[in-house]
């Protein structure tokens, strides 16, 4: 994951999918298509879970949290 580098929308989608906030397989992101509302909702869910300000936007605090070392298990299961 781009540890320390800037996190793009696509990176964020991959991260949110990997940890259970979006039900999409990673391969679907390679086509570059994704729906902005879906991303915003997933970001808001992540912000709520991580105790951040819930904005639905990929703000600096959210990027910083996505860069933290962490456990590979999904945050949302089923």
């Amino acid at each position, binding site marked *: 994951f781009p*540890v320390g580098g800037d996190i793009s929308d696509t990176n964020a989608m991959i991260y949110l999918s990997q*940890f259970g906030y979006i039900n999409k397989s990673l391969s679907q992101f390679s086509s570059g298509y994704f729906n902005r509302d879906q991303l915003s909702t997933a970001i808001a869910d992540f912000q709520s879970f991580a105790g951040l300000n819930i904005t639905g936007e990929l703000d600096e605090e959210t990027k910083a949290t996505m860069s933290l070392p*962490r*456990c590979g298990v999904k945050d949302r299961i089923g």
Partner: protein
Amino acid sequence: YGASSRSKRYALQGSRWRVKSLKYRISKYPSNLNHGKVDRELARAFGVWSDYTDLTFTQVKSGSEQVHIDIRFEKGEHGDGDPFDGPGGTLAHAYFPVYGGDAHFDDAEHWTIDSYRGTNLFQVAAHEFGHSLGLSHSDVKTALMAPFYRGYEPSFTLDADDILGIQKLYGKKTRSSGGSSGDGSSSGSDNTPKLPKVPTAPGSGGTLCKNASVDTIFRAEEDTHYVFKGDLYWKLTDDGVAAGYPRKISDSWQGLPGDIDAAFTYRNGKTYFFKGPHYWRYVGKRMDGDYPKLISEGFTGIPDNIDAAVVWTGNGKIYFYKGTKFWKFDPAQRPPVKSIYPKPISNWEGIPNNIDTATVYHGYTYFFKNGQYWRFDDRSFAVDNANPKFPRPTSKWWFGC
């Protein structure tokens, strides 16, 4: 979007083990740590959960026996379709009981023990074993089961949220002792050093066995403890009283006198010794500059002739004890000792006045007096009410008499 209306708390995946005596195997060790130390740290990580439940964990070292949890340190793709990503990022992952319970750790991480450097093996392992037992990620930021690594916490304790979660799955602890035998180390509720009864060479542990009162016990490097008494010292390791002791203090710590009042090793890796109005500073056994110096100059606010000093596991600050009083010394503060000190030792519920020494061991702080010792429960701020009760004889539990 607004704040989530659901209060934050632990999460259960939905499966758990039907039995409470679980076996585990470390089938692949990390490439950068001593196997014995890994055994101990992972046993301690399992102990986090057996402290609050009747779960027991036994390490199986023989190759063929069936285990519940298999543990491996791997790099990149390692056969489960969930490749690791090198340093940082994902540190480890584990499988819930319904999926087998195994725990995998990214061997590209710099795993460390009792250090602010790298990634703390104990904390990450305890978290992954929470998954192996059926806990999912918690959205309580201070919980062990929160998904993000928060760095090394020298005074780690399980969060109330984690305790609620694991007791939801396996019930509260009813049995006093947790560990089980098996052919490997076991994790139970009592982290007191389990010193095997080793035959002491004449004069080695014998002196300590006859009279277990000491001048000081202090932790030097990682898990090595020294006992000072008069002009002599002994080395304690996890395996008992080390052979070839006692030795003369001045033979090993050049320039250091006997009859030391107190000693502790701070997180800067330096060891401080106190006697009368003076203190000395060493790195390992090498004097670290021009000593002795006056306590009144180096530790302003702390009196001469102290009884004990320890870096308390509760908050990582330095505490000094003398007679019926104690002082908190925070080098980052000005002044380092607040005007509200000294305070009565009776605040430390169950700890007597006029103690001999205090030390830390495996995340607990221990107090010693007249051949007996107490383990302190930082969370309840009182002597631990484990069974058998404290105080316990130092000679038996620490010196292997």
